[in-house]
């Protein structure tokens, strides 16, 4: 198997000298195959949530959990973020927090819009 020779850097990367040469992200195939397998499993799980018709907070929390796990696996392993330097990781991972703040603001806003609509137009369509 060629897998054994594939992984040179990764865990030891942080202590390496700051040369300007780009390093190749090469890891054992097994890591990818395992993650691939789990992506299939998690997708199947989130589909099952809809198929069996779970409702309410159980449905929403399960959807969110499976979504976050899938997204995390893709970013960390498939996109190699787990092996990059923190300078790059934080530059990419932190800014989307602004989107979450925006989401929160708009959640309050749409709550208010709904309230005014029901006040002036009544509850039904």
């Amino acid at each position, binding site marked *: 198997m*060629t897998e054994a020779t*594939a992984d040179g850097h990764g865990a030891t990367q*942080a*202590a*390496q*000298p*700051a*040369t*300007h*040469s*780009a*390093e*190749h*992200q*090469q*890891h054992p*195939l097994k890591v*990818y*195959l395992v993650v691939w397998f789990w*992506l299939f499993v998690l*997708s199947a799980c*989130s*589909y099952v949530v*809809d*198929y069996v*018709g779970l409702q309410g907070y159980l449905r*929403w929390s399960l*959807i969110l959990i499976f*979504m976050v796990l*899938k*997204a995390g696996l*893709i*970013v960390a392993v*498939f*996109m*190699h973020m787990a092996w990059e*330097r*923190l*300078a*790059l990781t*934080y*530059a*990419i991972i932190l*800014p*989307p927090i*602004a*989107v979450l703040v*925006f*989401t929160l603001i*708009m959640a309050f*806003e*749409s*709550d208010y*819009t*709904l309230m005014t*609509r*029901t006040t002036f137009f009544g*509850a*039904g*369509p």
Partner: protein
Amino acid sequence: MADTTIPHAAPRPPGLRGLAADWASDQRTFKNVSWGKAMMWIFLLSDTFIFGCFLLSYMTARMSTRVPWPNTSEVFSLHVGSVSVPLLLIAIMTFVLISSSGTMVLAVNYGYRRERRKAVGFLLLTALLGATFVGMQAFEWSKLIEEGVRPWGNPFGADQFGASFFMITGFHGTHVSIGVIFLLIVARKVWRGDYDVGRRGFFTSRKGSYDSVEVMGLYWHFVDLVWVFIFAFFYLW
């Protein structure tokens, strides 16, 4: 372009101290990635904001309407024989896209190992799966349009459903289509051996290297990543 990095500098500290050192070093910040990769990541970050804003405007529309939202489980169901299976097409599309992500990762890996034949094979397979995805999306669109879904209204519930659906899935489908085109371009370059001999690209005149395959992979995985969020928020919620 002048190289502003001091070669063979002292080892950098790990963790947060390393982060501070990289950003405060008055040199290149992203030290061990090619600039193509750094730029792709920054482009993907901007794309994250675009899709983030689409999804949150969808949330705003859905939360603020008095009219019930269409039941996506029924709207996107398919009939197999006489049985109606909820979200069947969407589930297949999800699996197709995840499969393509897996083949992409293999293509990157075989590229770095200089196994050109396998790399080209997996790149073409990725492009094929991507094209399949777009084809199924076209089928889904025409089915919904036939049923009377329009950006300004639909027979199933709140009017904003159509606008959100066409905007979000349309923009994602465009990303997949562009990805397929670029996959074919990269596959051709690998096939010709451009990345082995460092042949310069016609557009950027940069020396080719297998790094380009990884950068292509970043884009492709991002497309898959966006679908994960669309699948959760638009189809399942």
